[in-house]
């Protein structure tokens, strides 16, 4: 474990930027989002949740992967897409870091999504512990402990006041640590004590959060019972089918493939899609889910029943963004509780 003083941050960013692209939580117009760091940006490492999740970095909102052009009778194709540069994603909270694993489960299984794989391999994830979890956070309901390093992050850090403690977790993390060289200082006995106190304080705060009683494991009934439950009629009524929840959610990963028709040339790209949209998964005969209730049910069945059946883990990390962003105050917590998932 090492430490670096917060007043050396500017040096740290420049140092990282020499060998990597650097993504940090940057504040613009009052909203904090992960973006590519430039010198004049206002970095905000205190905001617990970024406005939109960082999944945009590993799974971009739209990604062109094929370009084509016709020249008379000749057709030329060009593979593009993926990511060439190595990058560091700094300041990811444990919930968002766990969401990367959840998306990995889908995209890194056979057949492997090579663009996603390349982006994941080129990235070094530096995660930060959450000092003051917000009242809309419920990561503990999914087994996430925001004071400890979740599986898969390359480096984990803790803010203990004037300095941050830095601990590499993987080989990639070690490489980054070495590259940064002497910006680090040695950790003292006092620092370790501070860290233990901090970890305890975070644990206490998490257990006293208002949503800590949410427990998806208590949802009872088998797939067919939950699917046919009358609960869905009631809770889907107010849903407008907008898609805000899916786009701010760190674990939602549905995408569409579209072509851009440029006349004699064009591009094929993939883009985020939302199961809330009325044209989602539309096929030759039409949309198999014609009512908003069916679409609403699909989203939550996927997160709470289908995905856990396939991967033995829930497809939600308890970040609480859907609670804050839904225009009509619907969210996964209400769904879980209605299905019986409360301690």
């Amino acid at each position, binding site marked *: 474990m090492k430490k670096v003083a917060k007043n050396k941050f500017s040096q740290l960013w420049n140092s990282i930027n020499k060998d990597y692209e650097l993504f940090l939580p940057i504040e613009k117009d009052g909203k904090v989002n992960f973006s590519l760091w430039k010198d004049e940006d206002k970095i905000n490492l205190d905001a617990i949740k970024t406005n939109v999740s960082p999944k945009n970095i590993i799974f971009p*909102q739209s990604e062109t992967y094929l370009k084509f052009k016709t020249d008379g009778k000749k057709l030329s194709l060009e593979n593009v897409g993926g990511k060439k540069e190595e990058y560091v994603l700094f300041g990811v909270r444990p919930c968002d870091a766990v969401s990367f694993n959840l998306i990995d489960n889908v995209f890194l299984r056979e057949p492997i999504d090579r663009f996603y794989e390349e982006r994941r391999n080129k990235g070094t994830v530096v995660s930060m512990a959450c000092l003051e979890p917000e009242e809309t956070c419920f990561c503990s309901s999914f087994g996430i402990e925001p004071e400890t390093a979740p599986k898969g992050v390359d480096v984990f850090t803790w803010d203990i006041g004037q300095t941050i403690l830095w601990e590499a977790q993987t080989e990639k993390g070690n490489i980054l640590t070495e590259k940064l060289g002497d910006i680090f200082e040695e950790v003292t006995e006092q620092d370790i004590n501070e860290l233990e106190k901090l970890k305890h304080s975070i644990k206490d705060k998490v257990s006293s959060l208002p*949503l800590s009683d949410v427990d998806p494991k208590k949802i009872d009934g088998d797939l067919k019972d939950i699917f046919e439950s009358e609960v869905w009629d009631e809770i889907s009524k107010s849903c407008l089918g907008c898609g805000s929840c899916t786009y*701010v959610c760190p674990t939602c990963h549905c995408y569409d493939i579209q072509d851009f028709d440029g006349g004699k040339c064009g591009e094929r790209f993939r883009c985020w899609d939302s199961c809330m949209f009325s044209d989602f998964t539309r096929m030759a005969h039409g949309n198999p889910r014609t009512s908003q209730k069916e679409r609403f049910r699909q989203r939550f069945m996927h997160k709470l029943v289908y995905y856990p059946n396939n991967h033995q883990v829930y497809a939600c990390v308890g970040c609480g963004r859907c609670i804050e962003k839904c225009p009509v105050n619907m969210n996964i917590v209400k769904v879980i509780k209605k299905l019986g998932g409360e301690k």
Partner: protein
Amino acid sequence: MEKITVKVRETARQAFSSGEVDKILGFAKGDFWQDSYPIFITNENEVDSLIWDSFCINNLSKYLIKELKNTQKIGVFLKGCDSLAFNQLLQDNRIEADRVVIYGVPCVGMIDAEKVKKEGLNKGLLEVKRSGDEISFVTKDGDKNVSGRQFDYDKCLECNHPNPVVYKELMRDEVSREVNKEERFKDVEEIEAMSAEERFSYWSQQFSKCIRCNACRNICPACSCETCVFDNAAAGVSDKAKVDSEDQFFHIIRAYHVAGRCVNCGECSRVCPAGIPLHKLNHKIIKDINELYGEYEAGLDPSKGAPLVTYKLEDIDPFEGHKGGK
């Protein structure tokens, strides 16, 4: 319990027992102090879940189109802005007036949870009570009382219609608020004062924040097309690529499509996850319509035609300028 909640429940109970309605659209309280969400109740036993407080921001008129398809008579609690939307839907022939019973709720303004959080007043906050402009933050460690409108949504501060314009009965006394007519379009004038380059830079920066979630479109009461042009692959405009021109296209066309029908409720800006000030686009169109075609407020008088589907022979013609040869 607040007086208004008592009145709301009483009215609902009465409505069900007299058979006046088959369903009522109202608000219930969720887990958090700011969580007041729309509910749909169908019998007297559910009436006690109804509440009314300073977080009942949603426009319930929006649900009428869908609900009227499978319910004969619906009762709905509407604020001033909501009632304008109701009239607009009538004008658009999307709903039938005689199947809806409106319980109007005069509104002094809704509280913006973000502003409360910014002041740090959300720590341990249990409930927010409001009487006129006297606000009481009830927390675990005691109450904090505040006077004034500093926590209201920006759009509520510029509200022209705190009282419903159409209703069967009112839930409480009408609100009287001064409206500064001179300052009405200040936000639009600020942008108009910029140069073309500055304007483009401002708007393209705003539009680049867009994540194309469609929240603005889905919450808008004027956007009620069965199949939106942006969901219709056959229309050729539904490109979902994250490209500047596509984002600009979406917002310009959406603003244009609701021109003359936008009731200025400001919900589009409120729900935008990226914080784009969309209402400034719609506000500009409203200002233009007022200047060019006479004062017009969508939703005030459903019998008057909307500006874009009517015309006058003497309309202003800015295109007549070009004197070519004969």
